């Protein structure tokens, strides 16, 4: 099934023409509404009229996470605040989150893309669909929620946590669709086993899984244990949210909503565009966004693009699985975590030496984050003669970390000079998850 055949199946030429027209318009729009882009374009001696076709995109400057940070909170917003009806936020690389404002039209486009995605999975108005992504600043919950409503299926805003109650609803309501992180899907399966609920007892048939990397093996396991077909969904708040791309019944690459988000693959070092099929950094330009459009936003996700018509009939280019990152970002329980965020918190507390280690693991299919820090000798005073005092200090850091990272981290205090001095960025992370 195809939600919008006019857009999803348009011919290559037709789509290129549409993309070119929209690119010109968006460049003109940001030129007049976002000083950051106007200055950049003027520095490069580019006027909006220089951008007429989609091929002209390579003349445009890139946008990075750092640009979003430097213009915190609303510096890259193009629409006046009165037009913004929703704001989401994702992790920044340090203390400040990345703020993204959406106009009513943006929410409409997002819901449309989400409906395309769900339809590609085979979801219809007859489905009962549970959204078990986090509701809140994270785009997963509300993004999927609006899509299900737009499609016309019944949405169950389950959110995260409260797994047993959720499973009861899945069984009792005959829920047929599920959106969550793949690791949470496995956790659901585990909880089912514990509660003695068999896959024959439930009616789940479609899963929209994303927000973290997963493998074919995980897909097989989820499909087997929950008795459904599991599909990949991809998105990022800087571009829109979930449904920037999604798999179809073929389960072979995720179709990008190309009429709204134009993808490029570049060499992350030279920034040169790479030919189709080669793996490089994924870059997106929003072609229709009003709230916070981005030109050539560097996602840092490494993958390749597959052009050509899919067996499902869609002509939209597909992206392969995310093969890695060109920075040190971690995805933990679906939430983006940068080691630099942890660093900023550790440095703000004089009790700790400026050394730290993130230990990421997966226990019972749930990601765990442990932050190791060293107490400074001069702060280890006589009050630390009981574990209660140590626990209190650990808790103080854990509370601060939670507010910055949006996920809970377990703090482990280490003796002075026991954490290896870092030799580079990755030396701050031990990732024990086996994907």
């Amino acid at each position: 099934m195809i939600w919008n055949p006019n857009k999803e199946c348009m011919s290559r030429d037709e789509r290129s023409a549409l993309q070119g027209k929209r690119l010109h318009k968006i460049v003109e729009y940001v030129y007049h509404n976002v000083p950051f882009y106007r200055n950049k374009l003027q520095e490069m001696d580019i006027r909006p009229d220089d951008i007429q076709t989609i091929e002209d995109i390579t003349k445009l400057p890139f946008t990075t996470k750092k640009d979003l940070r430097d213009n915190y909170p609303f510096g890259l917003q193009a629409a006046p605040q009165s037009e913004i009806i929703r704001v989401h936020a994702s992790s920044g690389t340090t203390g400040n989150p990345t703020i993204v404002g959406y106009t009513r039209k943006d929410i409409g486009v997002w819901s449309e893309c989400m409906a395309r995605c769900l339809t590609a999975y085979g979801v219809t108005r007859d489905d009962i669909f549970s959204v078990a992504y986090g509701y809140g600043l994270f785009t997963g919950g509300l993004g999927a929620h609006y899509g299900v409503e737009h499609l016309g299926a019944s949405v169950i805003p389950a959110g995260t946590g409260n797994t047993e109650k959720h499973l009861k609803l899945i069984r009792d309501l005959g829920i047929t669709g599920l959106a969550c992180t793949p690791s949470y899907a496995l956790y659901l399966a585990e909880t089912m086993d514990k509660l003695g609920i068999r896959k024959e007892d439930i009616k789940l048939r479609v899963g929209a899984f994303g927000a973290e990397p997963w493998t074919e093996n995980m897909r097989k396991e989820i499909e087997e244990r929950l008795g459904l077909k599991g599909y990949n969904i991809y998105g990022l708040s800087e571009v829109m949210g979930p449904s920037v791309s999604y798999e179809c019944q073929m389960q072979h690459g995720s179709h990008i909503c190309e009429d709204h988000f134009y993808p490029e693959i570049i060499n992350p070092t030279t920034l040169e565009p790479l030919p189709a099929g080669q793996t490089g950094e994924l870059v997106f330009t929003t072609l229709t966004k009003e709230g916070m459009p981005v030109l050539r936003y560097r996602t840092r996700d490494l993958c390749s693009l597959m052009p050509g018509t899919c067996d499902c009939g869609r002509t939209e280019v597909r992206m392969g699985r995310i093969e890695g990152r060109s920075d040190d970002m971690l995805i933990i329980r679906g939430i983006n975590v940068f080691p630099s965020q942890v660093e900023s918190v550790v440095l703000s507390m004089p009790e700790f030496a400026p050394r730290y280690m993130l230990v990421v693991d997966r226990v019972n299919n749930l990601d765990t984050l442990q932050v190791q820090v060293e107490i400074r000798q001069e702060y280890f005073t006589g009050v630390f003669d009981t574990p209660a005092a140590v626990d209190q200090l650990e808790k103080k850091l854990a509370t601060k970390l939670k507010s910055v990272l949006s996920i809970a981290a377990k703090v482990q205090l280490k003796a002075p000079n026991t954490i290896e001095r870092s030799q580079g960025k990755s030396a701050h992370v031990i990732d024990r998850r086996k994907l």
Partner: protein
Amino acid sequence: MTVHQLSIFIENRSGTLIKVLEALKAANIQIIASTIADTAEYGIYRLICSEPMRACEELKKANVAVALSDVFALAIDDKPGRAADAVKTFSEAGISIAYMYSFLLRGKGILIFRTDDNEKAVKVIADNQLQSINEADLSELA
């Protein structure tokens, strides 16, 4: 009335305890009594030793997280029920004991403990004429 106690942060990892003990050995420090308050991830190693100030400095040099705290030390007769009697006087005065350990020294039982109200504890010890010992007594006894 009080003696110095070393409180040492020790991770639950093999090799951490021996590092502390080796450093004390190298500095020729005598351990008089010790106890470990252990948790799942680390322990607080509390010890009474000879020359606690110097011991503390030596351990710091060895990169050990160590601190000095003052703890009460009472000498009691080495007979059944004496510890109960001593603790009861604090309990009746409404003072809580945070932790306690004991050892024998020259036929006397020594109770080491910390309370939640040191000022009040000092008064209770004086009022009840409990036999407290200090740093000098310890080294003499040792």
